[in-house]
């Protein structure tokens, strides 16, 4: 699950390239999510929603189709992941995205940084 958020405007353009000692905003959020166990909960929620809306079945079908086309012994996990990931991302329903973003937002508001 990837967070898409803008880097804090603390950094001037050009300075982003260097690795800073302090974690970036994205990394800090991720750390917070992981430490509190919230990330695991969000992952579970996402899994549940994606099954409910049929996304998992759809992706399963796509994977099967891909594997069938290439031949079972000609496909590795990496190739499959690489081929299916863009489709999978595109097929996530908007309301699932919205719900998760809302949860993340709520969590961030409740947490001290």
């Amino acid at each position, binding site marked *: 699950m990837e967070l898409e958020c803008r880097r804090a405007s603390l950094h001037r353009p050009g300075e982003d390239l260097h690795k800073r000692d302090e974690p970036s905003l994205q990394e800090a959020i*991720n750390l917070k999510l992981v430490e509190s166990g919230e990330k695991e909960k969000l992952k579970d929620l996402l*899994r*549940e929603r994606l*099954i*409910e*809306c049929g*996304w998992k079945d759809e992706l399963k079908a796509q994977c099967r189709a891909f594997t069938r086309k290439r031949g079972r012994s000609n496909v*590795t996990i990496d190739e499959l992941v690489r081929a299916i990931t863009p489709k999978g991302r595109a097929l996530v*329903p908007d309301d699932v995205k919205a719900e998760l973003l809302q949860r993340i937002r709520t969590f961030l508001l409740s947490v001290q940084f």
Partner: protein
Amino acid sequence: MVTKSSSPCYRPCEHLVDYKSKHSTRGFRALQRCIVVLPPGRPSVRTLSCDEDPVPRCASCAKSHGRLYACLICSTISCYSSSSSHARSHALELPGHELAIDLDRAELFCCICNDQVYDADFDWVVVCAHASSLAKCTSFSNGRTAPPLNVYSRKRNRGAEYKPWEPSSKDPLVLERGAAPLGLRGLTNMGSTCFMNSVLQALLHTPPLRSYFLGHCHNKAACQSKVCLGCDMDDMFAAAFSGDRTPYSPAQFLYRRYLFLFSFLNSWWQHAANLAGYEQQDAHDFFISAVEGIHANSQQPELRKGNDAECRCIVHRVFSGLLRSDVTCTACGFTSTKNDPCVDISLDLESTALEKQIYASSSTLLGCLDRFTRPERLGSNERFFCESCQSRQEAVKQMSVRKLPVVLCFHVKRFEHSAKNYRKVDTYVQFPLSLNMACYLSSSIARLRHGNRLIFVEGKGELGGDNDSGSTSPSSEFELFAVVSHSGKLDGGHYVAYLRLGGEWYKCDDAWITRVGESVVRATQAYMLYYVQRSLSDESSTTIPERFNQHQTLVLDEKIGYTSLLADAVQA
């Protein structure tokens, strides 16, 4: 019990074979204690964690997201990505440590081959772990209780985890009350939309369609189209069978249909005229466009073929039959045969005085069918090109049913829109509740045409693979389940639907549904009749209509009379 031998198509990699030969199943069985089953039934590996750091991390780079693998030999956790694989480095450094287990998924992974590998004994361990963890837990391991599943809420029911159902205290009450039949719900008239409402009522109670949509075979959530009649049908079925008896507005269907008409028929005037005045449309036209629309939005494009006869989309599987047309040259007797798919059978009402003498009057459905399948002499200005004579000849044409659909829809042609005529035929048409189509099948018709010539034995010659339908075969018996009738004049008339449910008839007049007696239905001016194959009908009638059988015999005799005349004429 999982078989010890691996499937013949799968070959484990050399590293797995190596590992198995050295360690057999000891490593797997040790893992069994570590495998937990997280909701929704996903086996996963539980790692030892300390309080400061509850998450597993790669031993080399401390990464905690992405794919993590634990070595089967030394339990070292390493990360994997296609660009940098610490799991691979670990395996390269330490020979014998090639195999690892995916922490999130409990799958075996070979770090040298960079791919998942499979082993029956390992899978058996996972299954055992799964079973024992299920036995222990009573609620989800994260403490959440399952949300109640509302079967009819959008998007929340496809693929949901199975939960056993226990009847609640309300259920016996519902059964006892003898509630009105399921799925009976009025449809609001949105401005002369009775043409649509009546056909929709018939479709809502077409048994195979009902099963399809209530079974959520059209997955709305996964549907890619923005405009999808299939999704609208799904909505409508859900609404009709929701138990809510207040009238439902099939607004989406109406909107979509206009969009569909516009884009697929591309007829501006029709579109503009329709929208402008909400003019009364023809129910049969609507039925055809609805079928085409659902076909077009069928979610499995590989099932949709250009040829409707072979299309496996739900509407064609239900309504599509095959009509056969035989054109016989009067000079040499050569017959040219054509099979055309159809989703309904349109029947003419008019008959000449001569026809009235020979055939049962077309004021019955069977009479119309007789007329439909009778040999028809094509006029001298309609000569066809005979391949055997190599010249244009006068011909005789005969229609028959090559393949019966699951649901048979009859369209009684009451409306005439031609240049000279714009009128409605009000003739009353009598129709049976049970219908046997055996004598209208191509095999029956062909047999009658040629008598008992040996060259036309079953399976050979022009009969092809037709079933023996001289007798009443089960698939040619139909039961009536819906009638769409029209009352009033050509413009400004009104459509209602009659539905046969639970042995009773219900009149569906837009938003008003009333139970009516059979005599009311029999007296109505039928415009469209929907019959379903008896084996699928909810209402197989047990009485054999005596008069029906007699009528059938009478018709056959007359047919033989006419065709032997024809045979004489041909041989002359």
